[in-house]
């Protein structure tokens, strides 16, 4: 009924990363918010990388 393994395309990845960079500018110097930013960027990369590994037959996470 739905795609339960949704991956980010190249375009979606860059849009999302740009949004994250822009949003967190306001919180520069705040350690916890910097940690949240890192987590969100890592999650974007994981969602995108898993797509590439599926194409190459390496499997997802």
């Amino acid at each position, binding site marked *: 009924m739905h795609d339960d393994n949704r991956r980010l395309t190249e375009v979606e990845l860059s849009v999302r990363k740009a949004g994250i960079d822009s949003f967190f500018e306001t919180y520069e110097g705040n350690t916890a918010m910097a940690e949240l930013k890192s987590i969100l960027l*890592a999650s974007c990369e994981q969602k995108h990388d898993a797509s590439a590994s599926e194409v190459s037959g390496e499997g997802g*996470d």
Partner: protein
Amino acid sequence: MTIDMSQILDQLPPFSPSVKMLMQAMEADFVEPSKLETLLLSCPVISGRVLQISNSSFYGLSRQIESLREAIVILGQGTLRGLIYTLSVIKNFEQAKGDEQNGFSFDVLWKHSLYSACLSRTLAEAHNEDASSLFTAALFQHLGLIVLNRVDEIAVREAVRVSQSEHRVLVESIYEHTGVNYIELSYQALEYWHFPQDICNAIRGIACVENTQAVSLIKTSTLVASAFNYPLINGLYLPPISSAELQGVFPGSHFATKCINEADILFEQLAKDILG
């Protein structure tokens, strides 16, 4: 300037007679499925969305629901009540969609609220919190802003401007300009409409900035929604999360990826089914 909250509640937009009858009927502990079906049929927009959402990953049912009677029996009256109340309130504020006022668009506000709700739900499931209540609480946490904007557009506009230009938390800026905590107003409005108490209490927890995991989950979801290009208002300053809160919400990046992935899927479906 201080606005009287009870006067605002008296000015809430009324539901249509058929929706009002449906909501009143659902306040009873039990309603005959045949009666409920008849009442739902008199609210075609809401019943259409009930069927769509019943078949979405929101409920994760293994079989297709093809009729309202099936939805009533399979979802159960308690679940259906929360869904119908949610859809009724959104439908009641639909006329505000498409408007651009005070630097915010109601379409954008609903998308922000819906993404926050989807992530709150997936995080709540992962942390064994009440996923259904947190979904609805996150969805309606900013309802008071829409209501307040109808009452005093000028004060809200100035409060938004101050929040954007001075990096002030919106709820505090609005309070200074109107004397109203708009998240408290969201709580009062849902209670006025007799929403289930667990949902009202979850919103009150946000308004009172309670130090609970549920509030941390919704607060984090709100930040993530804004970072993912679903801002409440562009350039708005949101309350930052603490390190302790962050550790409690996202104990690891794979955990975060899993919850965010589920929220993305849910959001894509519900954005069509709920917001149209």
